[in-house]
């Protein structure tokens, strides 16, 4: 597709379950970002992938959060043992290089609700 694609668009799960969120970036974009957006809040950086370099995980809130990017394209964000405070919209973005000189293009996000 032409834009960043995220799935599922909505996810409702019980506390303690694991969830996987998927991001398919724009073809050719080497930089990929995950953000979390809570109601009425700005975007909270989670993790950044750039090419084959080691990801910047400095924004991950706890060790329950992890992400990987396979083949330099699709990325999966995994949240283990979900907690109610994990409820938020998880946004993925990608950009071309150089990443600090190009806008990030966002998907429509996954709305995660923890019961």
């Amino acid at each position: 597709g032409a834009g960043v694609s995220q799935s599922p668009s909505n996810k409702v799960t019980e506390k303690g379950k694991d969830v996987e969120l998927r991001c398919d970036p724009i073809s050719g974009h080497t930089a990929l970002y995950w953000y979390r957006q809570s109601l009425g809040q700005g975007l909270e950086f989670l993790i950044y992938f750039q090419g084959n370099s080691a990801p910047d995980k400095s924004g991950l809130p706890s060790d329950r959060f992890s992400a990987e990017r396979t083949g330099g394209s699709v990325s999966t964000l995994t949240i283990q043992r979900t907690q109610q405070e994990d409820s938020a919209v998880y946004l993925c973005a990608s950009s071309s290089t150089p990443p600090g000189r190009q806008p990030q293009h966002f998907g429509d996000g996954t709305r995660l609700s923890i019961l």
Partner: protein
Amino acid sequence: GESVGLHLPTLSVQEGDNSIINCAYSNSASDYFIWYKQESGKGPQFIIDIRSNMDKRQGQRVTVLLNKTVKHLSLQIAATQPGDSAVYFCAATTTDSWGKFQFGAGTQVVVTP
């Protein structure tokens, strides 16, 4: 660290009028700025960007102004339309970053008929 914020959380504007959305940033090293529009249930959509070597940049019905002296950024929307109702974010990054932007919380723009 970077701190980016917006002066007004909500802006109500009459259809056809011009809108001005403001943003302040704290890091004087910031040199690349973006405005995004986010409609309900959707991801942020790129509107316009500007680099620090410019003071003004125009797009279709939008103009971004950058005042580096006071570290202030604004977005002007001409002839505001109902479809412009959304939350608007500014974002900033620095030369030596890899694109780690700091985002403001956003301004809700409500267009009234």
